[in-house]
């Protein structure tokens, strides 16, 4: 290696290290600041304490909001998986004219339903339905927004299940429910787990929909509660924000690791052979 190449290498790695550090800093801040007695916006060696956690626990909404987030996320995930799986199954098995156009249209519309642009009509709709300040309302709106993309992804998985699997089970006398339970669902399990995790992550981080549709502070999820952590003077309360952020991230990371180990993620269909 010539000296010239050597310098080039060193320069390249230095650049990569700097870029990595740039992106790693917020993460480091997230794991260190909650344990710092004097948290600041800069990354500092913490003055170790668990006081921030006890202060957070004193906030009467903190733990409740995490529970609310779980309720909304799990509720939406159940709804999305159940409806997307059945819809994708029928779309995959029944030939209807214009099916592909329908699918692409759905995908296009999905970004609008939960998008900012549709917030006013959605609010009015929920108001007319009497679903304002109701977790069910939030779950319905979020499900509606996520379903099209979920159907789109799951249809690909359904397409990859050969028809002969089902027919074979039918010849043996299996009912439709048994076929779904014993054959179709196990084969597309990676797809189902991908969709559930994707839904949960989406709901977990969603601020706008619960912020607009929920009135009662006892019902608000963690993403909305975060906004309220200000001191009386109006400046951000870094003790609470950093500590709560950490608690907010942990469940998602744990879930991701668990599901990935147990089922594996895939965004495309196909049988491993």
């Amino acid at each position, binding site marked *: 290696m010539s000296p010239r190449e050597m310098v080039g290498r060193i320069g390249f790695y230095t650049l990569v290290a700097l870029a990595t550090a740039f992106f790693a800093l917020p993460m480091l801040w997230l794991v260190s600041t909650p344990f710092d007695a004097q948290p600041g916006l800069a990354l500092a060696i913490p003055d170790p304490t668990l006081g921030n956690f006890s202060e957070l626990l004193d906030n009467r909404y903190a733990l409740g909001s995490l529970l609310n987030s779980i309720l909304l996320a799990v509720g939406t995930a159940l709804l999305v998986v159940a409806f997307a799986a059945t819809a994708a199954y029928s779309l995959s098995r029944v030939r209807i004219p214009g099916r592909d156009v329908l699918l692409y249209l759905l995908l296009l519309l999905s970004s609008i339903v939960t998008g900012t642009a549709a917030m006013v009509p959605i609010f009015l709709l929920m108001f007319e339905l009497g679903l304002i300040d109701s977790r069910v309302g939030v779950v319905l709106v979020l499900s509606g927004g996520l379903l099209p993309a979920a159907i789109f992804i799951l249809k690909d998985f359904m397409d990859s299940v*050969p028809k*002969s*699997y089902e*027919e*074979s*089970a*039918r*010849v*043996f*006398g*299996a009912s439709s429910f*048994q076929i779904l339970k*014993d*054959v179709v669902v*196990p*084969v597309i*399990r990676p797809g189902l787990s991908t969709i559930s995790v994707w839904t949960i992550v989406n709901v977990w981080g969603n601020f706008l929909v619960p912020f607009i549709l929920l009135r009662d502070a006892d019902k608000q999820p963690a993403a909305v509660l975060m906004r309220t952590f200000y001191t009386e003077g109006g400046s951000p309360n870094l003790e609470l924000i950093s500590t709560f952020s950490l608690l907010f991230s942990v469940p998602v990371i744990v879930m991701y690791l668990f599901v990935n180990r147990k089922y594996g993620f895939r965004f495309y269909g196909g*049988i*491993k*052979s």
Partner: protein
Amino acid sequence: MAQIDLVNLSKVYPGDVRAVDDLTLTIPDGEFFALLGPSGCGKTTLLRTIAGLEEATSGSVRIGDRDVTRLPPGKRELAMVFQDYALFPHMTVVDNISYPLKIKGLAKEDRLDRAVKAGDELSLDGLMERRPSELSGGQQQRVALARAIATHPQVFLFDEPLSNLDARLRLEARTFLKRLQRDLGVTTVFVTHDQAEALAMADRMAVMQSGRIRQVGTAREVFQHPVNTFVANFIGSTPMNLLDASVRGDALDVAGQRVDLPEDVRRHVTDGQEVVVGVRPEYLTVSSSAVDGGLQGVVAIVENLGTAALVTLEADDLSVAVTVPDGEEPPIGADAWVTPVPGRVLIYRREDGELVDAPVAAAVG
């Protein structure tokens, strides 16, 4: 064990596509029966209609003494092996084999017992804990067969059982399937587009075209005595020679030459009738000296078939294929005379392609 009766069975798809057209057929108990035909002839639809995966538009399907036409597949007491075997990828071999028994509500020990027994019969012991993806094509096929056998069905249905195997394995599987069927004695229907496969395995076969049966018979009947030009053309690894000719008294005019008209068919034709002469390359002999009443031609192509050679002669604008034993091929460009083996010439009517001496043809369809 059961006989299968199909009576005036039709399957019509939307758009008036007649996949199976008013078909009547009886498959006796214990027979190994082939449905043979080119793609799109309705053979797979017929098999699926017997299975109950397709609903018959009209007519009836009987298995044993039960009319199963309106029964769902699971109630017909049959087992089907699919072209791709349809093994469930998330289940081990033993789970795959015992799954139908689970559906039928057998207790766990009984299921395992029967699955292991069926697996042993097909020498799958040692593979029972594997997943289908860890098996070779031949092993996968045996798992699918074991799964079918374990249910003790009245009838087996195989859809293109050999098409997913490579050429050498296919020959082994042919022998294996035939022996298995003989040992079990279960009425078996299989679908194939490969005439050699049907000839080799089946006790009897139905040759199908456009949803209809063109001939039913044993391998020998179908090979030696095809009742129409379609079957004649379809059966045989070297296609039958089908030569346009016209009757001239007690001889035939083929390509301007006078050729003997076999005595056994003389009474079925009339003077001046337009016919098609069918004779297999295997049933022609070739001579390098003039033969009275033979067809003269010039040797155009010699193809080696291994133990024999396929010689193509050209006579006027007709070509005639003849098989000759290894080492007796005439030189290219030489004159040669062909004569048929007595009793092996078939005469078909030009207008409908049916055999002139086969009034049976009408009864079969």
